[in-house]
């Protein structure tokens, strides 16, 4: 035994030795080989930049205004992160913000001021010095003022929150022109008017998503686009998983999109019938008595029938809705089953706090009073369940207080000019309107004399429905100045291009919007401006100095930065802190008790001009009544009012007047804004955003048109066919993509493709759906017509 054991052990040792020896040989061989080739593994370490700074700023690739922290390494901006201090984005950044270095370092940027040589569309430019540019602009404005026609100067502007909007208004006022025309009529104006005519606030409602239990979104694409998508996304996240009870989200929209995909329920509704659905829901709530009686009886107006000052009996909201909007009828209008309407009404009123959310761009701009009325109807739902100014309900945006602007010096020329009719017809041609951006083209073509036009963050040729008209209109304007950073479609027609640096290189402030409480973010140059560009604020201040006299007295600042420092001196912190943090806010929303002084001053009725500021929510719009009082029914009908009498002043549904016959043009065209490219033209020239543009359908770098897949198959279309989309206003060719989540009677084209200018990545890529939209303006409000164009689709 023993010997056997030792023998076997010896054998084993030998074997083991062999194995070890062999492995050793292998290892040695391999190492030898490697050392021969000098490929030793050494330490692995991180090599990085020499110097680094973190500089805060605020994004401007959508209206959210997210705080950003720029990582500047060896003088280059290499990365942006969300500013965790900023309440809108809480440290997050969407793809557009992340891709912003591509905007800063975009090779297609304008590198200095340019002057057109030759004709309008020659496309030939020569450089001009800033001093010359200032002299030319000042000379033009002085000439207008000397001729006593300062109103012939006009400015079209886009996204300008904070001081810039007031600065532009003050600039034009000092010159003497009422023509400071915002692009709001292309998107949020309908919602703002709806809020004004009910709640009496000329602003967008703020939604306390975090504390709400039930979100009923009427076409609001909360998670992709809108006024403040990033704030909505943050709120949505908290609503879903940030608390004990998961909030419910319902999307009512003909298109499902990402918001509908994420929602608990998507209700495909016949386009343009949101008002009917809202009133149908109101009908059920009223009929079942599940409304907030305290609010309705004590803090609203026009719920019940009433006898007015004219001593006639007016119909109230309650009887109007009960008579006209029973779910069965609403089903006929909207295509939403009556049972669903009843159920939604029950859920909405039974799960307080609940919010009905207004759409931003698109959904409300139907081309007659329908859109604004839908906004009123949706807001009435909030009022009905008492969600106004309650936690989890609808809040009112407050702003930081700034010192008063210095008094405008006396100036008769300017005074007279300011009294003139606006170039866009707001307040005159459009009795309810405040801005009618897209109408400027028609007005100019009709003979309104504009002699100097400034385009600040405005590209009307691209972004207005049927924007091609602006080309003709521009022919009639002798002097056009664009402040564009890129040579965009409209800048192409300008006489002077005075490029503003990108938002990453300039001083600007931005109000925090969407949370209710006041706050301000600060844009500051993250890197020194790359090119010979000038902040438009600085430029205009220097123009005022060149003009001199009362104009220059109105602007006692050296530059725009010092103006900002003065304007933001009362926000509660010093400039250095603001510069370092990039944001300052007074957090915590202070709710006003119903009927309290603050309620009356700030929450309900503040912005009413003609009707009582009595803290009552108007189910029956007294403001509207006052504004349209002088116009008789015939006149109103001639203007295109679909209803008359009391119905006009109550939230009501009127059928959308579509352009294009339903038989010939079976689809409603819907131009949708995506999270990837966003609303701003220049984002289309950011290659990374182009590369992710069509995630939902797997498209990149281009346009497509979405159609319901089953219906398309019925019509004989196939996925990825090339198709023509033709409206009464023109036609476009693009790729057809079939999707499940949409109604049969609409087609969608994503926004921000089909540019004819801007740069190498944006140009000649895809189609611009806005080109074939109805160019007309809504006759009462001057809103653009976004969703009342019918199209037909056929194979290319």
């Amino acid at each position, binding site marked *: 035994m023993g010997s056997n054991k030792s023998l076997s052990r010896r054998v084993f040792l030998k074997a083991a030795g062999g194995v070890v020896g062999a492995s050793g040989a292998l290892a040695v061989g391999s190492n030898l080989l490697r050392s021969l080739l000098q490929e030793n593994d050494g330490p692995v370490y991180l090599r990085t930049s020499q110097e680094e700074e973190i500089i805060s700023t605020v994004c401007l690739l959508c209206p959210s205004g997210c705080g950003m922290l720029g990582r500047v390494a060896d003088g280059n901006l290499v990365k942006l992160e*969300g500013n965790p201090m900023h309440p809108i984005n809480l440290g997050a950044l969407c793809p557009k913000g*992340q891709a912003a270095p591509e905007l800063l370092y975009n090779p297609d940027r304008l590198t200095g001021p340019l002057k057109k040589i030759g004709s309008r569309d020659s496309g030939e430019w020569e450089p001009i010095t800033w001093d010359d540019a200032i002299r030319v602009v000042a000379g033009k404005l002085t000439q207008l003022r000397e001729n006593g026609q300062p109103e012939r100067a006009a400015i079209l502007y886009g996204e300008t929150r904070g001081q810039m909007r007031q600065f532009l208004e003050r600039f034009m006022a000092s010159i003497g022109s009422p023509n400071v025309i915002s692009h709001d009529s292309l998107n949020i104006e309908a919602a703002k008017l709806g809020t004004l005519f009910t709640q009496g606030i000329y602003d967008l409602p703020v939604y306390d998503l975090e504390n709400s239990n039930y979100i009923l979104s009427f076409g609001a694409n909360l998670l992709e686009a809108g006024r403040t998508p990033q704030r909505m996304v943050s709120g949505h996240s908290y609503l879903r998983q940030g608390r004990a009870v998961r909030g419910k989200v319902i999307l009512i929209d003909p298109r499902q999109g990402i918001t509908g995909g994420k929602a608990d329920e998507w209700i495909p509704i016949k386009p343009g019938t949101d008002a009917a659905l809202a009133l149908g829901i109101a009908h059920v709530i009223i009929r079942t008595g599940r409304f907030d009686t305290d609010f309705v009886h004590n803090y609203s107006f026009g719920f019940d029938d009433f006898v007015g000052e004219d001593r006639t009996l007016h119909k109230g909201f309650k009887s109007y809705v009960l008579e006209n909007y029973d779910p069965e009828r609403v089903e006929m209008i909207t295509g939403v089953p009556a049972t669903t309407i009843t159920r939604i009404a029950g859920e909405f009123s039974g799960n307080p706090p609940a919010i009905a959310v207004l759409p931003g761009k698109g959904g409300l701009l139907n081309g007659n009073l329908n859109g604004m009325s839908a906004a009123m109807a949706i807001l009435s739902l909030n009022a009905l369940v008492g969600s106004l100014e309650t936690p989890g309900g609808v809040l009112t945006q407050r702003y930081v207080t700034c010192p008063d602007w210095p008094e405008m010096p006396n100036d008769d020329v300017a005074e007279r000019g300011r009294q003139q009719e606006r170039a866009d017809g707001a307040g005159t041609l459009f009795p309810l309107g405040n801005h009618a951006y897209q109408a400027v083209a028609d007005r100019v073509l009709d003979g309104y004399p504009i002699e100097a036009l400034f385009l600040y963050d405005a590209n009307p040729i691209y972004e207005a429905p049927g924007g091609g008209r602006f080309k003709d209109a521009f022919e009639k304007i002798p002097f056009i100045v664009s402040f564009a950073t890129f040579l965009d479609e409209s800048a192409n027609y300008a006489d002077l291009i005075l490029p503003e640096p990108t938002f990453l290189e300039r001083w600007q402030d931005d109000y925090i919007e969407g949370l209710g409480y006041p706050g301000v973010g600060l844009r500051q140059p993250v890197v020194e401006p790359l090119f010979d560009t000038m902040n438009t604020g600085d430029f205009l201040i220097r123009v005022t100095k060149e003009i001199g006299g009362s104009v220059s007295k109105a602007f006692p600042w050296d530059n725009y930065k010092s103006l900002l420092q003065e304007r933001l001196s009362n926000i509660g912190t010093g400039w250095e802190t603001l510069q370092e943090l990039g944001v300052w806010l007074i957090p915590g929303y202070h709710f006003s008790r119903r009927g309290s002084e603050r309620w009356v001053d700030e929450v309900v009725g503040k912005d009413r001009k003609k009707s009582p500021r009595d803290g009552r929510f108007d189910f029956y719009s007294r403001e509207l009544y006052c504004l349209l009082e002088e116009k008789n029914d015939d006149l109103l009908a001639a203007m295109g009012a679909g209803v008359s009498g009391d119905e006009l002043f109550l939230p009501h549904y009127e059928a959308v007047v579509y352009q294009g016959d339903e038989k010939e043009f079976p689809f409603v065209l819907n131009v949708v804004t995506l999270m990837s490219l966003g609303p701003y033209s220049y984002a289309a020239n950011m290659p990374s955003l182009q590369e992710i543009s069509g995630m939902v359908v797997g498209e990149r770098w281009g346009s497509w048109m979405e159609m319901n897949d089953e219906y398309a198959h019925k019509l004989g279309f196939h996925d990825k066919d090339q198709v023509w989309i033709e409206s009464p206003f023109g036609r476009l060719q693009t790729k057809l993509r079939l999707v499940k989540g949409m109604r049969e009677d609409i087609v969608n084209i994503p926004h921000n493709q089909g540019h004819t200018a801007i740069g190498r990545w944006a140009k000649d890529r895809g189609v611009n759906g806005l080109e074939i939209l109805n160019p007309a303006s809504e006759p009462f409000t001057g809103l653009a017509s976004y969703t009342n164009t019918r199209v037909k689709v056929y194979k290319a």
Partner: protein
Amino acid sequence: MTKWSMVIDLDKCVACQGCSMACRFENNTPVVSPDEAALGRSIFWNDVFPLRSEEESAIASGQAKFLTRPCMHCEDPPCTKVCPVGATYQDTEGIVRQNYTRCIGCRLCTVACPYGVRYFNWYEPTWEESLERHLTPDQIEGRAVSEGPSIRPKGVVEKCTFCVHRLFKERDRAAAEEREFRTEDFVPACVQTCTAKSRYFGDLDNPNSTVSQLAQSRRAFRLLEEAGTHPKIIYLHEG
């Protein structure tokens, strides 16, 4: 030992693609031309996509419409197994890394990965003119080693590294500040930028970490669990 892991809450995720973009700018992945993109040669270490209706049920019990997909950093990665030269490997903290210097471009790992997270440089990555200035200067280097955001040569495979250079950076920072490195110091770029705050990152070996806690959720699932790869990306479905 730290076991880095990520939890993605699909109930919160809104498919905004902020993660994809943050990754691009953090890791210097190039933009490819439209033609290349149409071929499917775009490089997004983190990709976002809608689930086709027939897959929704298969992948997330019908409770997710969109998926955002970084590298799964599998505990048992099929890619590192098949790499003939050890260019891709799992480091001691469970991060599956890629050494561009050693990679021979055989693409066996790309076909072995069931999640499609590995990308190939069909051409030399390029940035047009001034766009080059935004490239991240962070590079992981060593003798015959280049990883992370280092600019890739053509013909090599690249992939999500959990932004491992940030881990290096935070370790260096902790050392410079003469303190212990804490797991909370390090998050990848996609986690930091997530608009919906749907991403959580941390140490799965620490039972008290957020990721460990969330991994216990009844909503937790992993992609292709049946593939036996044991992903360290843990998804939470809706509901």
